[in-house]
Every structure is written in C-alpha cells, then in structure tokens.
C-alpha cells in the first residue's frame, strides 16, 4: 500500500469519504421464500446474505436442548470468491468459527429467549463479497433477517467498526484501511438502550484515544440503526398496504 494515504490532508479517505461518513448501505428483507426470515445488506462493496430458520424443534442431539430458553445456532460462512484472493474453504477455519461464536453470543443477548423453550433458532450468514466490515455487515443482516422472521428481539442489534489514523477516528473501515495496519475497533450495541453487546479491538490503540474511537463507532451504529429501521418500516408498510386493500 505504498503511496496510499489512508487519510489525506484535506480529510478525505481513499474512497473519498470523510472520517465520520459511513459507506452507502442498501438492504432488502425477504429475499428467500423457503427460509422463515432472510435479508440482504450491502455496505459499500461488502455484500452479506442472512437467513433465519425457526423457531423449530431441536434437530440433531436432544442433549443440546435447553429446558427454559431457545437454542440459538449460528453459522458464519464466506463464499470462496468473496475475497480478493480465493479462499480454499468457505467455513471451518478458525476465523469463521470465531465469528460464529461471536454471532451466537450477540444474538443470545438480543433475542427474547425465554419465549421458546426447547426450540431452536438457526441463523446462517453468507458473505458474498468481502471488503472490510464483514462482521458488522453480518450482524446487521442477521438483525434484519430475525425481524423478517417475526422473532421477538429486545432491540435492533447494530454493529459498526472504527479505526484511528493521523489522530482522527474514522468510521466504517474498508478492507484497504483494515490492512493498513492501524487499530480496528468493532462495537455492537443495542441502539435504544445504548448498551454494548460485543466489543473487539485489534492492534494497538492508546487508551486516551479509546473513548474517542468508541464514541465515533457508537454514533456509526446509531446511524446504521436509523437506516435499518427505515428499511424495515418501508417493507412492513409496503406489504401491509397490499394486504389492507384486500381486507
């Protein structure tokens, strides 16, 4: 990346954004008919599909069944053509397993689990194109898919990443900015209550700067929440309008 400045003197990043601007987000609910809920999200060049099945009877080993709450089962998988360099295996490697576990923890906190004892909810995420912020896009897509499936949630779950370059926190970092070697902070919050569900930070960041970067990331999450909420409202209105005319 020689010669590529992550943040120019005028305050522009490589893709022309300013430090506080998110990438363009486009999303759609109800992509597949067979899944109970599905959603597709595009954050810049990162494209993620999520599908939710459930709640349904626990498949596989009955031992995993929880008597008082629902079992949340996740899988994070990347298409082999999603990255610049072709990936040999879509899932099963350490990174995917780690992401799977993080997703499970996140949604265990957000879904109202005691409503479905002895059932199972499956959340499957497939990354079609990866350009940084995979985990964040996955969380956002999974939230939309859960809402599409009608599964009760305490609140939306929004995730955003942030970095720190030239003493400026930058929000929603792309793949080039990630590989630039600077610190990366991923935060997942429940926007209404502003509670942090998941927090991860890579590389080195001085603790004085931590609160600045955290603030920027949280603000990014709230902006994403506004966009997702708008998309959900539009979708519900559009579908209900058709249904209402036939009532």
């Amino acid at each position, binding site marked *: 990346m020689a010669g590529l400045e992550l943040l120019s003197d005028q305050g522009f990043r490589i893709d022309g954004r300013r430090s506080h601007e998110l990438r363009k987000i486009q999303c759609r609910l109800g992509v597949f008919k067979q899944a109970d809920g599905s959603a597709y999200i595009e954050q810049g060049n990162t494209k993620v599909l999520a599908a939710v099945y459930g709640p349904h009877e626990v498949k596989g080993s009955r031992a995993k069944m929880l008597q008082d709450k629902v079992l949340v089962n996740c899988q994070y*998988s990347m298409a082999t053509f999603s990255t610049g360099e072709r990936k040999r295996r879509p899932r099963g490697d350490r990174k995917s397993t780690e992401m799977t576990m993080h997703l499970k923890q996140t949604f265990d906190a957000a879904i109202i689990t005691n409503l479905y004892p002895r059932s199972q909810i499956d959340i499957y995420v497939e990354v079609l194109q990866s350009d940084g912020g995979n985990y964040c896009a996955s969380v956002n897509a999974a939230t939309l898919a859960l809402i599409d499936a009608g599964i009760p949630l305490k609140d939306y779950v929004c995730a955003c990443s942030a970095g720190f370059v030239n003493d400026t926190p930058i929000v929603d970092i792309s793949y080039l900015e990630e590989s630039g070697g600077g610190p990366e902070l991923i935060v997942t919050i429940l926007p209404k209550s502003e509670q942090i569900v998941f927090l991860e930070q890579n590389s080195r960041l001085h603790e004085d700067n931590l609160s600045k970067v955290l603030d920027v990331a949280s603000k990014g999450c709230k902006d994403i929440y506004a966009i997702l909420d708008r998309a959900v409202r539009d979708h519900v209105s559009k579908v209900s309008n058709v249904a209402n005319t036939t009532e």
Partner: protein
Amino acid sequence: MADVNYSEAEKTFILHGIQDKFPCREDGRGCEDYRHMEIETGVVSNTSGSARLRLANTDILVGVKAELGVPSPEKPDSGCIEFFVDCSANATPEFEGRGGEELATEISTVLSRCYDNSGCLDLKSLCIIPKQQCWILYIDVLLLECGGNLFDAASIGVKAALYNTRIPNVTVNQEDDEMEIELSDDPYDVNRLDISSSPCIVTLSKIGHYHVVDASQKEEACCLARLMMGVTAKGTISALKKEGWGSLNPESIFDMMETGKKIGQVLNTSLLNVLEEEEKSGNKRKTVGFLK
C-alpha cells in the same frame, strides 16, 4: 434437497399426472417445459466473472476467478479449470457445517466431467508459457436455495459466468532465457472465453414410464432414476450419468437421450440469446443483484 417424506397418495397423484395422454404436472407444465428462469451476470465485483441464476425456488450464484499457475504435467500447453461447489446453510438447515458436502461433491464431479472434453472450452487459449505458466480458472458455485433441479441450474450458471469472464491480457517478454509475464492493467484490455460449445446439463427424471425435465422437489422424490447429460448447442453429448436407485431399460435410455439432445439445444440457444441481449443493454442496466 430436503428429505421430506411424501405420502403415497401425493406421489401417485404426480405419477398419474405424467402418464396421462396430455401430461399435466403439478403446476400445469408439460414434460419438456422448464420453469421460469432469471439470470444476471456481473453480480460479484472482485471476480473475473460471475452470474446469478434463479430457477423458481432454486437460487445459484457462480463466481469465476482466474489465477496464474503451473499447468499440469499431462497437458503442458493448456490451462486448467477447477470446480468447487458449496451448499450454503441458507438453503436448508441440513446443509450446516459439513451436511451439504455429499451433494456438493456430486455436483462438482458432474460439472468437471462435462467440461472434461477438449471441445467444450478452449483450454489451450489459457496457456501463457507452455510448461511454465497458464491460467487456472476456479469456478465456484454457491447454492443459496434448493428448489429442485440443481444440476441444470448449476451448469447454466457456470456457462453464464464463463461468458461474463474477462481475463486480463498477458504479454510475454523474453529476455535472454528468462520469460517475463506482464499483466495488462487496463480493464478493457481483456480476453473473453468462447463458450459456444460449452455444455449445459439436462437432467431427465424417470417417473413411471415417462421422463420429465426440470423436476421440482416433489417430482424428484417420486422419480426412480435420473439421467444427467451434458449437451452442447450443437446437440453433442459431452457427459452422461445415471443416478438413482431404480434401473433403466436401454430403450428408455435412448429415448431420454434423444429428448435430452433436443431440449439441450433449445436451452443452449435460449441462454446464449439472453446473454447477448443482456450484454447489448450494456451500461444502461444497473446491477440488481439481490436488491429487487
């Protein structure tokens, strides 16, 4: 391919429908009709070529990546193609983890067998320096939703993705005994592949005494045996595979082959027409992907 058991009565209903003088399948199609298909190329940007196919409920995404590599010692002057199929858990919870591996290997073996023919794809054009460097095409098929007839859909997706593939032009500079390869950076200085003789798989399912094309999931559960054939636009068969636990009469096989050839030709020509039409609309069209 959900393992739903269907009742005897349902299967009988489908069976009788096909044996009728005027065959009427569950959704009103005849024995040789395909369901509605929609295709779009160029959906994934960091690939050399991609395509998305929707055949009723079946949803397939194909990505082609071209990488430089060493040719195989048996064929030093041609490039290689490698197929990889991934059954995403999005399609059904049974594909979670390694659940879909069996199906995936089946599909990729059939695809490689179809393309194993030198007449299908001109692999010699992929060679850069004989014995040293060639292009290797990695064709990755991602199964997003299963609605029956996966093999046909996968092959149509692959053909469309190959049509959409753009391989950068390579100049070989020879200095003394060293050969240097230079990849062109110009996005318009590319080579395309000639897919006019690439095959499409046509699956014929034998239900009762007759055979149908493009079986839905229910029909697949009723069929005793299937014949998969790779058919090119000219009607030549590049591969043949019989699957299923039932047995087939040699006459039935010949009948099915004739039908398959006829249908394969129609399929190939329609596909090529659509791909050319899509390309002609050029920059005016916006990539829709999954957004609509």
